[in-house]
């Protein structure tokens, strides 16, 4: 189980994440939602130990991740928000490098790389430099790289970004499948429909603070709203989206 206790992050005194506490249980997909700039990716980076919280504590299976970061790194897989990969490497080279860096044995990693490339429909482009991959192809490479070492904790920051419909459906089912196998999955996404279908629980973040943490059904019932999108709009968005869109249209025409 992943647990955040009163975690805050300040950048030069400006809070990006404030007093965030939640837990993500194994066997569950936990949605982590929020508008742009609400602190989702900062939280994800703190969970991956890429950045250090200014305050609070992050625990995985009851142990603070700062106690043994190396052991913790062996247990999670991470798909970042931006598909940042080394563009001069081919998909196969990149996956093989990640497997080697994780210390996977040679035969095991080679077989895994080949199979994952085939399953993600990237086998034909395995020897093509990633600079010429589409965003979706890079995303698939990142997913394969995050899962190749069979992690216990899976951190997905906008994993559907750039994926075509077919691939998105595969990834959606894969996330549910991994959770059913006992993995802890934390999913951050702007696609409310997908979150509604995949997640059992959601945490909604606004301006760096948690404004909701409950099951989707419970939230819908409590707020008497039909969809998660409406719940999210109510809780996390301050703007009147319809008014703003009509104002933009008027400015364009003026």
């Amino acid at each position, binding site marked *: 189980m992943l647990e955040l206790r009163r975690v805050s*992050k300040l950048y030069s005194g400006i809070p990006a994440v404030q007093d965030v506490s939640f837990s993500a249980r194994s066997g569950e997909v936990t949605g982590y939602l929020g508008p742009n700039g609400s602190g989702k990716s900062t939280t994800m980076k703190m969970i991956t130990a890429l950045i250090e919280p*200014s305050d609070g504590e992050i625990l995985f299976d009851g142990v603070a991740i700062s106690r043994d970061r190396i052991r913790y790194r062996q247990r999670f897989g991470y798909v970042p928000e931006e598909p940042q990969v080394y563009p001069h490497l081919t998909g196969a080279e990149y996956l093989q*490098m990640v497997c080697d860096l994780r210390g996977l044995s040679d035969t095991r990693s080679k077989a895994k790389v080949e199979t994952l490339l085939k399953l993600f429909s990237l086998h034909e482009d395995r*020897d093509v*430099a990633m600079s010429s991959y589409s965003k979706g192809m890079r995303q698939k490479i990142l997913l394969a790289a995050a899962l190749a070492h069979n992690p216990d904790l899976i951190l997905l920051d906008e994993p559907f970004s750039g994926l075509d419909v077919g691939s998105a459906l595969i990834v959606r089912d894969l996330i549910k499948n991994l959770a059913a196998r006992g993995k802890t999955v934390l999913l951050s996404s702007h696609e409310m429909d997908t979150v509604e279908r995949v997640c059992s629980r959601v945490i909604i973040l606004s301006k760096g603070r948690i404004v909701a943490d409950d099951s989707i059904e419970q939230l819908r019932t409590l707020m008497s709203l039909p969809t998660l999108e409406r719940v999210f709009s109510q809780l996390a968005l301050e703007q009147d989206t319809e008014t703003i869109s009509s104002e933009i249209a008027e400015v364009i025409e003026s």
Partner: protein
Amino acid sequence: MLDKRHQFRILVRFFFSRAVDLELLSPGGEIDKLMIQFAAILAAFNFVVTYILVPRYFTSTQPHSLLVVSAWSDEEFLISTTISVVGLFIVLAWENLLPDAQDSLALGILPMRTRTIALAKVASVGCAVGAIVLLVNLFTSLSYAGIAASDSSILAVLRTFSAYWLTMCMAALFTLAVFISMQGIAAQLLSYRAFQRLSGMLQLLAFFSILAAYFLKPQLATVGGLTAPQNRSWLTWLPSYWFLGIFQELNGSANPILLRLARHGWYMTAWAITIAGCSLSLVYGRTIKKIVEQPDIAPRDRSHHSSGALSRLVELLCNQPIDRALILFALRTFVRSRKHRLLLAMFSGIGMAIALAYTESLLHGEWEQRWNEPNSRLLVASLVLLFFVVFGMRIVFTFPYALRSNWIFRVTAVQRPARYFFAVRRSLYSLAAFPIVTVSVVFLLAIWPGRPVFAHILVLVTVAVIVVEKSLCGFRKIPFACSYLPGKANLNVTLGGYAAVILFAAHQGGSLEFWAMQRPARYVVLLAILLVWAIRARHCFREFATASLTPIQFEDRSPTEILTIDLRRDGELLGGETYVEP
């Protein structure tokens, strides 16, 4: 109403500002400061040349007519220096001579004519070349106007002064035209993708050709040298002699040999400019369309045999996954990144230039030692190359490739840092030391008997071990994966100092080795000392690498800067970590 002149001026400024990618070398990231430093270095170089060359003309007792003839070799030296410096600048600005995908896509959609873009690009490079010509000849132009003038009248001095500048500008224009033609023709003959691949190789070829021509060309600027029939082919191919002829012609000389060279020079310059103009027009007419229609470098299939064979070779040599991952990453980055290749070419080019300068006298038979017998000059040359390539590669390792992608190294750093440090060391051995030792073995075996080659290779390998181990002691980065603060090292000053030390060490070392090779006892003592030093260096590196709580470095920032954004303990090890054991 669109003002074409205004657009032209804006574009010239824009292209001029990015003529060379200087950000990596700039102190504190300030391009202006760096440019001023470069300008000062060029002007200072010219001042030193003037200080060394000029006084002897004023103290000479020779008659003026003979003095003018003896000045030919200095004039040729100044012309070839101008051509070489301009050539090296063009090599650095290689990618900005012709339009690239960025220009085509970003400027192509704006309401301006292609001709304006083409002219602005040429004008920006022309401005930079003009500034270089000015700086490289600042002091010599003033002094040689007095030396080479036919008499001491003001008119004669003014004529020589004008001839000097016209010649240097012509030489620079010729150099620029040759390189534009080279790229323009390649762009016409090949697909854009193939051109991009070839362009990198052409750039390196141009770089080393300039250095080789500058240091290896024979000194023919004497009456005997210019008239000797065996030198005719040299004179046909060496532009510095054509422009010496042009200078003499403009200065009023009636020497038929120089006039013939001048005629050849005018003819070749006219051809170069015509071809450059035509290819440039075709490039802007056709290539821009090609660029827009094709992706920049995609799809580039890397599945060719050499890549696969290389991977298998590395897999064969490295049984540890971490070694394999880092060596292959370093190798692939180095092979595929033009910026890193060019940076290494710069360092190894300096080494090669010094090595060539050392061996030049052997080639022209001006030294008591012979090239095909063991000699100190070739020993020094191989040591110089080894030092420059290893240190160059070590410096190139510090420049990141795609910094935002280095998160993958951070989240996968699950083995003891020592494993990564050892893998980095292996990369430096494989990519720098091993190739130089191999090339030296092959080259020396081709010209020397086996025994001295074997003796030298033993020394070279031991020195390589010392250099690699010492250069990596304290290096906590994964190659191409750590941020780099521009100007932190103030490379153009630091490297000058290092180059002087390296040169001194190589010169003394090579001479000592040659002296030791004369007697077996001396050689054994020297090798024993080097071996002890190498073992000590390896021990020091091992101590550094295996020291507890030494983390891998991903950020090239001082702890105080990290504090301000609250990354207080980022990357810090606590001592109780559980690593993956290989």
